[in-house]
């Protein structure tokens, strides 16, 4: 697969994450770099690629761009099976009144307690400005918004 243009972008992005200056990035940054490059891996997938590292490894082990590329490729080749409809259906489960909205608070709980629990910072960044004056979120619009970036 030719992706020299991406590669350039990729290299730049990679460089942006290198805080140490050794042309490498830490294990715990890999997932974010992939996301910055337009992918949406789950933490599980990334961990699997990294060989299920310990928390220690995650913080200390580093990898260079050449090592990172194949990982990225794997992720590109196995995209998310779910799509817009599935997410909307999934969130509809929490729509108690069936009116197209969920309580912002409820969504926070769902995201922070189910699946791969998200932390408060992530959720705050996610939901900034999404709730209406009643604290409700129109989840269809929300999902569209999330998937548009």
């Amino acid at each position, binding site marked *: 697969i030719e992706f020299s243009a991406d590669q350039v972008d990729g290299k730049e992005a990679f460089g942006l994450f290198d805080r140490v200056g050794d042309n490498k990035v830490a294990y715990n940054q890999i*997932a974010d770099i992939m996301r*910055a490059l337009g992918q949406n891996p789950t933490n599980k997938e990334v961990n699997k690629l990294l060989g299920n590292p310990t928390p220690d490894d995650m913080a200390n082990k580093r990898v260079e761009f050449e090592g990172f590329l194949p990982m990225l490729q794997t992720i590109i080749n196995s995209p998310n099976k*779910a799509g817009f*409809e*599935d*997410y909307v259906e*999934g969130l509809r489960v929490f729509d108690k009144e069936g009116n197209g909205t969920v309580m912002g608070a409820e969504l926070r709980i769902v995201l922070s*307690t189910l*699946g791969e629990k998200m932390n408060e910072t992530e959720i705050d960044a996610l939901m900034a400005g999404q709730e209406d004056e009643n604290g409700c979120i129109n989840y269809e619009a929300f999902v569209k918004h999330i998937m548009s970036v």
Partner: protein
Amino acid sequence: MTDADKFLYGDRSGINDPLAQADWASKKLVWIPSEKQGYEAGSLKEEKGDECVVELFVYFFNPLFFFLTDREDQSILCTGESGAGKTENTKKVIQYLAHVASSSKFKKDQGELEKQLLQANPILEAFGNAKTVKNDNSSRFGKFIRINFDVNGYIVGANIETYLLEKSRAIRQAKEERAFHIFYYMLTGAGDKMRSDLCLEDYSKYRFLSNGKVTIPGQTDKELFVETMEAFNIMSIPEEEINGLLKVISAVLQLGNMVFKKERNSDQASMPDDTAAQKVCHLLGINVTDFTRAILSPRIKVGRDYVQKAQTQEQAEFAVEALAKASYERMFRWLVMRINKALDKTKRQGASFIGILDIAGFEIFELNSFEQLCINYTNEKLQQLFNHTMFILEQEEYQREGIEWSFIDFGLDLQPCIDLIEKPNGPPGVLALLDEECWFPKATDKTFVEKLAQEQGTNPKFVKPKKLKDDADFCIIHYAGKVDYKANEWLMKNMDPLNECVATLLNQSTDKFIGDLWRDVDRIVGLDKVAGMADSGPFKTRKGMFRTVGQLYKEQLGNLMTTLRNTNPNFVRCIIPNHEKKAGKLDAHLVLDQLSCNGVLEGIRICRQGFPNRIVFQEFRQRYEILTPNAIPKGFMDGKQACVLMIKALELDPNLYRIGQSKVFFRAGVLAHLEEERDLKITDVIMSFQAWCRGYVARKAFAKRQQQLTAMKVIQRNCAAYLKLRNWKWWRLFTKVKPLLQVSRQEEEMLAKEEELLKVKEKQIQVEEQLKEFEAKQQQLSAEKQALQEQLHAETELCAEAEEMRARLAARKQELEEILHDMESRLEEEEERAEASDGESHHRRQTEENGGRHHSAGRPE
């Protein structure tokens, strides 16, 4: 519990838990201890794993509700092992009913009945309850309390029936246990006068009180004695009768102090010290010599003659014990009858009733005897009623919903075991065979067991002795489990023989109360009838065949079941949480044991054979739609249709479900499986969504960083440039001169002009808009004006027409007036002419009459 557990738990339990789903579970109730009221309603809820969590909820009193709406007779059946709380439950029910169903309008009458009803229990408890190792206030008898209501739902009376009083407790008690409460109340609470009247002695002097003085923590027998006496007063039981009761109790105790010895040279028993006997006779109003003789060598009828049959020491002791037990039992029965009399005084007609059954639950001890057989037999029949009821409910729902369902009558499930016990013949059951053996002269417990094994050996519920450990004689497989029975003394227990000589003496006692107590002596199984003492053939009493304990009980139970079957039964299962009399401690294993004993697990098993889980269409769709994406097309669809499509998409085996009118029914476990899948699916989707969310967040952060990078580069470039230039003299010159140049100023002017232009453009747009507005307004106004003009025009025309019309009418009127005038004048003329001609003709006639008669004669008139 974390939010996570609560959240997921709340979702799942309603559907998964068969206890919660099955309709009959809603009738289950458990009393658990509470500080406030002693007991509160609770429900048993099983969580994952072994832990049982008891939840409190506010329970709407079902039976009363049914009762008030249908006027159908209700029954409340409380079962449970000793200490589980049945009696407390019963008391609460009665308290509640007495409170709720009494009317303040019927002041005196009703209030009294209520009070008496509430006092009935303490009295019965004093005489029928005792402390056991399992329960400080164990009911040693079963009872069925019927509360009768009139058509308006007010209490008119009550009736109590008792079963299976453990009378052996009056003569001996196990370690750490007590005899019936009343013994202790009396011995501790009686005043000096009473003590001497009743010949009461110290605790240690009574042989029948095996453990001497035993107290119950938290209770004072003395106070309770006073309370019991008060209760008697409230029930209007007169002093003589109370005295009679107490005398009997004292007598029962004294009987135990009668000591027999074997005479030196023969088997004949003798009583060296007759102090106890004297006291007994004094209390019971009989002659001591007669009494002694009756005990030591009673007169027995053999054939047609009477013979003095010598009694051995064992026989005498046995007889005295039997006498004590019989006395106590009769006294108890008298008490029940007396209470019933008090509770049934009102004349008002009872229209329906609520019955409360409080009876020992299933009993399985190491070895079990006749008493256990009776109790287990009772519980087997109650369980059958339970199954039958529950099954009917299930079946009714299936019918209502139009489910295709080929049913098995679960009531029959227990019939083999019940037959084993109660069938009279073909082949005869345990009770029938026992009765038979009682009539046979040389029969023993052993021959009974052998016959039983012979007749019922092939019954699947019967296990023959050979296969068991040595101690047990046979084994019955009840619904709650296998029970080993030991047949020792069963013949005796069944016959319950009594020295009829003594019985006759008592019947003729000088004390009215005692005489009353022993009024019927016809059905007594005399000692002579007991096998081993008589020589030949089955004997008859004076009035026909005697009735065994087994027979009597079978009849009593049969009547009870008939009554219950004609009511709407409500089952209350009491569960004892631990065997340590401790509050708040729950022994899971023990509880599960009881659930199997009381048929709850059986019930679940039965329900599972049907379709225990059911869910309304809409709910099913809402909950499980996520498992069948795209199965339901967009747009409105009938709930039932939607579910049909979904089930097809899920590819469920048709045997696992049924579709009804308003719900879908599932076999056990199907919904649980769907729930699991749903959880997985949701988790999957959420995880995937979270990955996207993280992607979103990361990309946004990254974009920001890129901007920062760019910005940084710009700043860096500028700084670098600045650093390079700041000391270059040419640059300095340049920066000073630039602002002075026209060229640079031109740019500024351009900018200014552009701004002006922008402003003007804006203004123009504004003005244009305004113009449009005005035009629009003007159009509107002219349109209105036009409309008004047209309206005016129309009005004018109308007016003109009206005017024309008016003119025409006026002209017409004028014409008509002229005609009228004409007519009038003509009329006048005519009148004048008529007058004139009248005058003429008159004048002519006159002249004719006068002058020409012959003219008129020829003229016909």
